């Protein structure tokens, strides 16, 4: 589904990603872990098409298409969803209104009729139950005055509504208490299918207790330096990142 080859990206001339290679197949969950500043969030942003990052080398193929050639909105319409680490506030625009605009633009791109108000509402009801979100929250201004947990839950609700092919969760666990973490993870798990894939970007192992990955990759200094299964995450939890840093830094100096 997703094939990242030798991806290099920089911001204001500073290289952040320095040769990422990653294959993600339908039905899989990949966790991207790594110490702060290793490039995890940059990878998520580059895949979503954030303009501040300049791709200097490499290619990304998503469902047979050159992802990097597409505008951010077309990537979304092709089925790439990014759950933001810091969801953005849009005053005066309700989640409902926002999503209706989004969903119908996505549908138009895919050659589908726009959903009328009745169908949209019933779809909303269905997805609300899935992520245990209150309708009151959805009629308030998007993310404005939301608690950390409400913001993240809202992100997962949007994901449920837009039914992406590839979901990228950028530090979705940050700022969540244990109950919120459980609810958000449940939502993500219910949305998983054989046709979709998930990339979970996280610093801590605890999210992976709930969203169990098929593969774990450790990002360090802009490269994937170690890949394994969920046991790797447990090992990291126990030993921290220093041993990996040492391993990489020593081979680099040889």
């Amino acid at each position, binding site marked *: 589904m997703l094939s990242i080859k030798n991806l290099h990206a920089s911001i204001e001339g500073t290289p952040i990603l320095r040769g990422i290679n990653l294959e993600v197949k339908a039905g899989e969950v990949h966790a991207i872990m790594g110490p702060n500043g290793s490039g995890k969030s940059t990878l998520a942003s580059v895949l*979503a*098409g*954030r*303009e501040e990052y300049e791709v200097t080398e490499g290619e990304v193929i998503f469902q047979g298409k050159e992802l990097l050639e597409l*505008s*951010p*909105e077309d*990537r*979304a*319409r092709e089925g790439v*969803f*990014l759950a*933001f680490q810091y*969801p*953005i*506030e*849009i*005053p*005066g*625009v309700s989640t*409902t*209104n*926002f*999503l*209706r*605009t*989004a*969903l*119908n*633009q*996505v549908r138009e*791109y895919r050659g589908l009729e*726009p959903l*009328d*108000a009745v169908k*949209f509402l019933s779809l909303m009801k269905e997805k609300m139950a899935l992520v245990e979100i209150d309708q009151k929250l959805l009629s308030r*201004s998007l993310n404005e005055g939301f608690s950390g947990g409400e913001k993240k839950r809202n992100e997962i609700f*949007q994901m449920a509504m*837009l039914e992406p092919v590839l979901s990228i969760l950028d530090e979705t666990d940050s700022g969540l208490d244990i109950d919120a973490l459980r609810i958000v993870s449940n939502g993500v798990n219910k949305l998983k299918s054989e046709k979709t894939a998930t990339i979970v970007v996280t610093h801590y192992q605890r999210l992976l207790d709930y969203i169990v990955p098929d593969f774990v990759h450790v990002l360090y200094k802009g490269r994937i330096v170690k890949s394994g299964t969920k046991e790797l995450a447990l090992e990291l939890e126990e030993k921290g990142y220093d041993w990996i840093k040492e391993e990489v830094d020593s081979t680099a100096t040889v």
Partner: protein
Amino acid sequence: MSKDNQILEDLNSKEYEHGWSVEFETDEAPLGLNEDIIRWISTKKEEPSWLLDWRLKAFKIWQSMSEPEWANVNYPKMDLQALRYYSAPKQSKKPKNINEVDPELIAIYERLGISLNEQKRLQGIAIDVVLDSVSVATTFKETLGKLGIIFCSFSEAVKEHPELIQKYLGSVVPMTDNYYAALNSAVFSDGSFCYIPKGVRCPMELSTYFRINAANTGQFERTLIVADDSSYVSYLEGCTAPQRDENQLHAAVVEIYAGTHAEVKYSTVQNWFPGDKEGKGGIYNFVTKRGICAGDHSKISWTQVETGSAVTWKYPSCILKGDYSIGEFYSVAVTNNYQQADTGTKMIHIGKNTKSRIVSKGISAGKSQNSYRGQVQVMKRAHNARNFSQCDSLLMGNQCGAHTFPYIDIANPSAKVEHEATTSKIGEDQIFYCNQRGIATEDAVALIVNGYAKEVLNQLPMEFAVEAQKLLALTLEGSVG
């Protein structure tokens, strides 16, 4: 919700969509401005002599005045002698009702999306349409007449209800008020008049639609709304003009009188031609709008959405004379390209326990300049006056300007006046967030701007709110990215 989407789908046309004009035979005054022209207009309109005298007096006063220069706008002065002060479509005879109006004129309005056919019109809005200098049609007159409501063109009101006109004309905006009000008083050609009798709640929205068609013609209309004690009316005003290279002048006067316990809601969606992308052409919109809350417990509420005009100079105001009277001003002013707007309000607290509320949302894009200018004045005997003002500015890009000029003048120590102001930019973060959900950039801007202006748009009657949202989006097209 479906409306919002409709709006977003309607965003395809890129240019000012009402920029066309139509050729038809007109009755025109010769170019220029002098006493003879004023007599010519007055004769043409078969006016009584008291009105001619009133005009001539205003003309004398105007001649002694000079153009105001304090506003934060810059434009080449207009040669007022090169303008035409009267232009009207030729009609073989005066239409008695809508069925007798020239079909060609009706077609113009159909093209603007305004049906004059009462059956076809949405329930609940009566409309008076003004083309260049004259009112061409008023709908639902008979329905309203049964309630004693008078809604007709200004010229007709002069003939049919001279006692009301004589009593109220110039009572809120005197001819001496300012340069453009004096000019309007001398040369005004038509407009709408509305009278709501005691205790009557007007069952439908009343509305005037202004259209400038002719070239080199100034439009000087006058609107007078009188709401007698314990009455209520909601009034809408809309306008468009053809796209022309030269600047055109629109200098209107609106007067509102509200008696005891009366309430008037006045909404405007202003969409005069703003000039092209290089700043060529466009309407100079120099307008005086003022209402007086004459009776106790009366209320006047102004809502305006300003998207058009090359230069706007406009301060819909409230004189809060009655005790416990309330004045409100809700405004969204959008400027793009080379547009300039200097707009705001005046709230004059005279009565005791008077309240006013000001919510102004400025949006500047391109190379435009957008100023809020507002005055809150609390007179000596206005005990317990309250004002709340909120002035927000939204900037798009880095070549535009937003300015706020609040004046506060308090002569009574019991007054409580609050002023809040914010300036923000549409964040790239916000746009990217929308993009990431599949929303194209232009639609994202429309969504964000409409959210920002929501508090004001919510004040508009439904049909107008939809129109206003569309206009906001259209005005800002191409201003990001």
